[in-house]
């Protein structure tokens, strides 16, 4: 087990996963996992299938309650939230953590714009005086709904969906649905955005657009990102920090380059013995050199 590198109160760390264990009956999905997500960075969580990545996500976003361990979220304001104690919807509302899903979960029968308005539910609820004032037509609510549409427009622009605003979300192409899901999550004003395989099923062009969008989120909004990804080109391209899981434990943690060259990671991915690692490593560098050439 690695020692946590930063002290928990360090403002540089936004999310601190500490000794988290998750058991389903007899199955240990995550075992004593600790890692940090730093602010204003893109952190990637990678690992072979069944390594427990989505389980980590579900623990962080409150869909599962970890069997043991702590998950601390430090907001910009300095407020610290214990995510392992919070229920799912409060994690978004109070802790400001948003997420997307591996199998896209859009409101397919609502329009693209409506999807983004639903995401601003809590802001609009307060503005409408919990429906009562809004029903009576108070001005505050009308202003708030105009502002909500403006914000939705902003994110539609960023996600390149402005001309599809009035179409049903279910009518969008796969790539556009992925972008919409991210835009929707961003409309909740999160400080940490968790993306579950955002590039899955995208073609190379859509994948590039996605990279651009994710970088823009990190650079322009100050939202930190935690993502699960299988597509190594995306991971290596955009992430600042990579955490590698295998069988529910962390086997490597560092910059993309460090991780790429970690023999344990290569062994995990290729399923080879440690002795053969050097051999494989050579082949890979060879192959990547060729590819870059």
């Amino acid at each position, binding site marked *: 087990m690695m020692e946590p590198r930063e002290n928990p109160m360090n403002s540089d760390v936004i999310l601190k996963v500490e000794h988290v264990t998750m058991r389903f009956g007899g199955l240990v999905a995550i075992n004593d996992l600790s890692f940090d997500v730093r602010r204003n960075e893109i952190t990637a969580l990678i690992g072979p299938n069944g390594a427990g990545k*989505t389980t980590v996500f*579900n623990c962080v976003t409150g*869909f599962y309650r970890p069997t043991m361990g702590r998950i601390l979220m430090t907001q910009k304001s300095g407020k610290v939230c214990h995510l392992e104690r919070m229920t799912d919807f409060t994690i978004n509302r109070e802790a400001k953590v948003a997420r997307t*899903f591996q199998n896209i979960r859009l409101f397919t029968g609502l329009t693209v714009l409506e999807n983004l308005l639903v995401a601003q539910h809590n802001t609009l609820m307060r503005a409408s005086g919990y429906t009562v004032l809004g029903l009576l037509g108070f001005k505050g609510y009308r202003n708030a709904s105009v502002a909500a549409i403006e914000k939705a427009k902003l994110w539609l622009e960023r996600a390149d969906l402005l001309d599809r605003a009035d179409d049903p979300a279910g009518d969008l192409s796969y790539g556009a649905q992925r972008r919409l899901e991210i835009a929707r999550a961003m409309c909740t004003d999160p400080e940490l955005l968790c993306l579950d395989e955002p590039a899955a099923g995208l073609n190379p062009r859509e994948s590039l657009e996605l990279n651009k969008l994710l970088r823009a989120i990190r650079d322009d909004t100050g939202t930190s990102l935690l993502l699960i990804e299988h597509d190594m080109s995306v991971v290596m391209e955009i992430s600042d920090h990579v955490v590698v899981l295998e069988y529910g434990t962390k086997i490597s943690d560092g910059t993309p380059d460090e991780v790429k060259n970690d023999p344990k990671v290569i062994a995990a991915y290729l399923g080879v013995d440690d002795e053969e690692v050097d051999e494989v490593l050579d082949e890979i560098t060879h192959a990547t050199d060729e590819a870059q050439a």
Partner: protein
Amino acid sequence: MDGEPMEYFIQQTVNGITLGSIYGMIAIGYTMVYGIIGMINFAHGDIFMLGAFAALITFLVLTGLVAGFPVVAALIVMMAVAILMASLWNWTIERIAYRPLRGSFRLAPLITAIGMSIVLSNFIQVTQGPRNKPIPQLVSEVYDVFGISISLKQILIVIITVVMMTAFWYLVNRTSLGRAQRATEQDRKMAALLGVDVDRTISITFIMGAALAAVAGTMYLMYYGVAVFTDGFTPGVKAFTAAVLGGIGSLPGALLGGLLIGLIESLWSAYFSIDYKDVATFSILAIVLIFKPSGILGRPEIEKV
């Protein structure tokens, strides 16, 4: 209260098991159809009622033809005709009201099922009249076992339930038909790709459910000696409740649920209040579901994120 407290309790338990057997047999039809096409077949209770009426009319035909028709033979013929009628109706209903909606909006077949339920009960009201239809006691022997009176009717009902359930269990677990059913239940598209005739399998499921409901209908007629066009509703709702209580989609669950409902009903009537027996049944259903949302034997629905 008559007799010793213990004997009274056992007596009520026997009554409950009899009633529960009937509910359990109807519940199987709900649970099978739900398992295979995921719809609540609201008309199933009325199929049960049609079965009871088929048995009633057959009984009248038999007694009209031959004066002293042997009771056992009469019961067998009644059951056979009821099974035939109920199966034919359920098969036709599936063809015209449910099949065109398969794969469509989930609530649409629910509404056609409610519509069919209304049609069936009103059809019987129009064709057979709204009055109660009493028949003479078919089986009247009562035995005294250690101070508990058990009627032959009750014994027959329990035996027939056990026989039907065994046959049914065999059909579902040990035959290729059962395999086709389970395959269709799991993944209809994949089953079709692998050569399972899905339409036929679903039709047979409806026929099997109807057959059990018809047997239950005959038993009900024999037990209470009366049939009326509204009979589909209350036993239907109880059986449906039983299916959900046991865990909808689970065959042993349906029988277990039926027995539980029967027991709750008879014990509650015996010890508390007969007026509130259905309130007790429904309250227990709600309480069970609140603590175990997928029923007693149902597989818990895992929320896949």
